[in-house]
């Protein structure tokens, strides 16, 4: 009996130990990023442009702006289609076509990000014969799409049918029942899904490698190459210049901060827009 209790204690301690080791990397990475990167983050770093190799200083404004523009474009592509498809699935529920849509969402969800880069390259970069921010945002939009569809469907599925009935009984036409009763009731879940989707794509590098490509300049034209934070970190991290590596740490701080902020927002949003059913 005593032996059994000892085993119980030992294994519990082991589980605690392993769990503790599990969360160590996060702290190690965060501590390291902050230690190396925070020193360089200042106003010039945030608003300045990259300087040529050899000159010190310079900033990452082009990359911050680029990430924002590329994500925004992806947002405007993925959200309407994703929410629409989510509504469709939650309304239709079953049938062959619905099953096909679900399978396709699973396919999109499991596609490796680098493959999405190839797709956007073949669909847009190759025919247009130029790297472009737009092609990058298409790749990211495809990545974001299944997240938005899934979350929309899940949050609309739990809206009780009685609410729809109540609206129908008031003589409200179908599209208004969906737009004004069902969607507002499931809004918190939909918004959370969108924010999760954005935070998922904001840190992505692989789909941008041969689409948005990167650029040392501030560029507002979506049909030209554009910088982005993850791309800049990748390029600087592999460079031989200590100055650039330093800047890559700084950029990592900014990127992590942005993504944590998005995560936080999605949590607050879940509570803020939550509709009690």
């Amino acid at each position, binding site marked *: 009996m005593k032996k059994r209790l000892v085993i119980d204690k030992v294994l519990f301690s082991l589980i605690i130990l392993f769990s503790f080791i599990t969360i160590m990397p996060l702290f190690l990475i965060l501590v390291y990023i902050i230690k190396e990167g925070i020193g360089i983050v200042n106003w010039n770093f945030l608003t300045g442009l990259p300087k040529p190799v050899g000159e010190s200083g310079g900033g990452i404004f082009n990359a911050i702006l680029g990430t924002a523009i590329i994500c925004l474009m992806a947002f405007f592509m993925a959200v309407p289609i994703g929410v629409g498809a989510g509504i469709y699935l939650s309304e239709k529920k079953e049938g062959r076509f619905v099953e096909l849509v679900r399978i*396709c969402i699973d396919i999109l969800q499991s596609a490796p990000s680098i493959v999405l880069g190839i797709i956007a390259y073949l669909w847009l970069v190759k025919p247009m014969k130029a790297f472009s921010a737009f092609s990058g945002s298409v790749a990211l939009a495809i990545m974001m799409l299944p997240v938005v569809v899934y979350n929309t469907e899940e949050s609309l599925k739990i809206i009780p049918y009685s609410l729809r009935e109540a609206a129908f009984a008031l003589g409200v036409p*179908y599209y208004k029942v969906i737009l004004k009763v069902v969607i507002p009731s499931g809004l918190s879940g939909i918004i959370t899904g969108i924010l999760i989707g954005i935070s998922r794509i904001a840190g992505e590098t692989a789909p941008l490698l041969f689409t948005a490509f990167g650029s040392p300049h501030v560029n507002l034209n979506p049909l030209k190459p554009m910088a982005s934070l993850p791309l800049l970190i990748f390029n600087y991290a592999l460079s031989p210049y200590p100055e650039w590596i330093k800047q890559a740490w700084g950029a990592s701080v900014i990127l992590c901060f942005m993504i944590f902020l998005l995560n936080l927002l999605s949590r607050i949003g879940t509570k803020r827009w939550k509709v009690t059913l």
Partner: protein
Amino acid sequence: MEGIKDRIFRFLIFLCASTVILIAAGMCITLFINSLPVLKHMGVSFILSSDWDPVNNKFGILPFLVGTLITSFLSLLISLPFSISTAILLGEYLRKGRMAIFLQNIIDLMAGIPSVIYGFWGLLVLVPIVQKVEIKLNIIPYGVGIFTASIVLATMVIPYTASIAREVISLVPDDLREAGYALGATRWEVIRCIVIPHAKTGIFAGVLLAFGRAIGETMAVTMIIGNRNQIPKSIFAPANTMASAIANQFTEATSDIYVSALIGVGLVLFMVTVIINYAGRYIIKRLEIK
């Protein structure tokens, strides 16, 4: 009897759903068509040959397949004790309370860190450490290579496996647990004899999904695997995975057949991840229905 606006609305959401199908189908078709040149050129040896020599137009992707499998498998092995421990801790011991929320948040944060930052950190912090170990062990101190990549990959998939395993463990009915306790079992005995057996299919599915993710993971691996196109001779050797080969070589590919070969790698990678993911999801869906 429906109004015109209702019909337009129904049509629009149908259109959105159709777009999803179009994109997925378009992806498969595009990848396939653009891989055709290399598939014709190489035939079966595209998968079976270990000779990847773009200069002489030889494209055998076996080194990448082997590299991908070893890296993913190794990372799963490394991560498993940690992710399962965390899942048991969260799903069994700490089911509520501040500590549980704290731990769950940390795991979510870990999942949110971009791949490129994991790679950057691995390159600057982990690689020198591995190099020192390799010097001690008296092997060529590359630093970069399969081993380092697997460690970084393991940290990246832990949150994923842990979350799924936790879900599955919390699906185990409480009355089963209570039945165990009522017989005088200790907590560990309940976990080992009741919870784990009951949840093992689901945990397996979670591991499968994590495997799919590890296979497709690109940036971190690209930065620390060493970019070498040969079948690795040891787990400390540099190599390439399918994803890292594409990332490293796509912009350098000059000839059409070289590009086609890399797209072919993409096609194989895509098929492998889709199949593994489908299997994982299928198992989980069946569990949820039960």
